[in-house]
């Protein structure tokens, strides 16, 4: 295979298409909470705990549906914990997010040891995977079929979710109120929107989708759970939301770009580029994207705008 084919060929694209799924699902939940001004970046925590509890739920019940429900439930629970500490106990949101992110690794590793009895990773047939869906009409186009066919339901759900999120955000009253609460809570309050309830609702939506996104990794065919399985994906999701400025379509495109750089890592290691440089690429991409987007407001003079 030529280098160009490796970089942009169907293998890489297929991988990117799949890897983007958890990021997009989590980000679609996150755009709502971010629009409502909820400063929660604990995606890493919720996705990792969602992954663990999906594996656990699937393990004890033998059904992937229960696994998915466990993951979504745990996600909502963690979001509620965040809401409790920040809205009821008036703690600092960035602090609680950081604490949650950090404790997730410790907590899941601990639970991995106490429940499954192993350290590092568990590979078990009792973790039932999501079934793969096959579309017969795609068999006529082999390249397209390679990319789009034989994926688990969540991959297709992610892209449908993008369209749904876009419609809800910009064409329903819920989306309008959500954005209004984020832009100016006081104004929203005077119009009659219950700001507190809106924040809690978007927080729970974010928890639900992030937890569900977390369930992708253990149950996508590998039947495994690793220590720190998400390893930074949560931060990339948050970065995508910030770069896409809470616009579902832009955020999804950014997620896809990040997923593409992730898929690129396999190709590049095959080309003998050192693994560490390859791992840097998604994060460097964020900075480059921010730079390019920020060039629009470049005036040549240094200035600080107050918050």
């Amino acid at each position: 295979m030529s280098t160009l084919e490796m970089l942009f060929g169907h293998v890489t694209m297929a991988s990117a298409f799949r890897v983007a799924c958890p990021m997009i699902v989590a980000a679609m939940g996150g755009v709502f909470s971010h629009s409502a001004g909820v400063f929660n970046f604990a995606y890493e925590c919720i996705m990792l705990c969602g992954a663990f509890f999906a594996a656990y739920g699937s393990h004890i019940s033998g059904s992937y549906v229960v696994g998915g429900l466990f993951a979504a439930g745990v996600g909502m629970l963690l979001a509620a914990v965040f809401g409790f500490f920040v809205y009821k106990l008036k703690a600092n949101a960035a602090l609680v997010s950081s604490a949650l992110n950090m404790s997730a690794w410790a907590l899941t590793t601990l639970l991995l040891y106490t429940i499954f009895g192993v350290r590092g990773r568990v590979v078990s047939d009792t973790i039932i995977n999501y079934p793969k869906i096959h579309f017969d009409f795609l068999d006529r186009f082999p390249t397209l079929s390679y990319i789009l066919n034989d994926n688990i339901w969540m991959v297709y759900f992610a892209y449908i979710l993008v369209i749904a999120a876009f419609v809800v955000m910009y064409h329903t009253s819920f989306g309008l109120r959500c954005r209004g609460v984020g832009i100016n809570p006081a104004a929203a309050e005077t119009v009659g929107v219950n700001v507190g309830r809106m924040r809690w609702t978007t927080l729970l939506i974010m928890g639900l989708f992030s937890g569900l996104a977390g369930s992708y990794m253990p149950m996508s065919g590998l039947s495994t759970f690793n220590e720190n399985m998400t390893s930074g994906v949560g931060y990339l999701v948050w970065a995508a939301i910030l770069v896409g400025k809470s616009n579902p379509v832009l955020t999804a495109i950014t997620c896809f770009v990040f997923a593409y750089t992730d898929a690129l890592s396999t190709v590049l290691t095959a080309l003998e580029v050192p693994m560490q440089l390859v791992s840097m690429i998604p994060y460097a991409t964020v900075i480059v994207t921010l730079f390019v987007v920020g060039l629009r407001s470049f005036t040549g003079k240094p200035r600080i705008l107050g918050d």
Partner: protein
Amino acid sequence: MAHKSSEGRIKELAGRLRPGPGFWTLQRHSNAVRYLLAVVLSLLVGCLLFLQQGENPLYATYVMFQGGLANIVNIGTSIRWATPCLIAGAAVVIAFLSGFQNMGIEGQMLVGALAAGIVGYKVSLPHIPHLLLCFLAAGLAGALYALLPALMRLYLNISELLVTIMLNFIAEFGTYYIVYWILMGGTRSNTGAAAIKTEDILESAEMGTLIKGTTASTAFLFGLILLVVLQVVYKRTVIGYEAVQIGQNMEYARAGGVNVVKRFFQIFLCSGFVAGLCGGMEVCGSYHYFLANFPGNLGWEVFMVANAARYDPIALIFISCIWGVMKSGSLQLERVTTLTRYSVNIIQMLFILFVAVDYVGLYQKYKDRARVRREKKPAAKEGNQA
């Protein structure tokens, strides 16, 4: 005018020293209340965790405290782990008190440590100049690493929050790459060293140990002095006052004649310098070589510790010491019991969460609510009778 006798003078001074009637209120001591309640609550939940894993919670707590404080060696370990908290915490305070969210402490620490590690073993100088050169290299590396987010904020108005976090990851991989591929030549050295690290620094670059037999270095004293100096600067100098004003109300500072742009740049680079210095002191004081990805969670922990201390330098000293004791205790716990250090990680996180709660404010709120309810009741009764 009557002269006061010396007795009278002493009595007057003693009267001033005695605490007045309002001293023992809850508000005055809300910080102490917070720390105490947070420690107690997090230990309580921790005991539940210990129980779940099948260990006697009281024994586990005892081991934790013994690991932190029991003998001079354990105290040395506590000091060793409190030190990076102090210095990196100072860097966080410098940035956040002025309202700038420099989350890139971990990245700046890594590049600073790498710079110090390289200068430590490649250059040969007498003791003091070598140390100073290492520190200078570390600080400059950290400040340079903070340059990009500072410029992006100034010229492109891009929030430094995300950029610095991304730079953390890039530093993590970048320093690993430099050590493994460039310095170690891409293969593990045939001396059998399993760790990805640079060579040991020369003796002339090592900092003095505080307590014999431990890795507690004089960097701890440096951290203490740094935080005291910061407290003085913020409370008593014009620069400190301006820095805090920028953080609290930028327009007010601007109206007051502060060159906000210049100060932002200076403060941000200062924060990066101190963070790099922290990394350098870790290398020169405790490790004596650069170990790839050595901060681990420390990069994130310092934010929580500094926030828990409400960015007050003196409070930071106390919380860092508590943090060091907990960390040392967790290592002892892992050695002595079947518990893993993750349990103590969770307790540390809970400590941070519980410290962030404003207990006195909540208590006041519920007290007021109860009072209002009590006052409403007799009025309602009268209303029913009328």
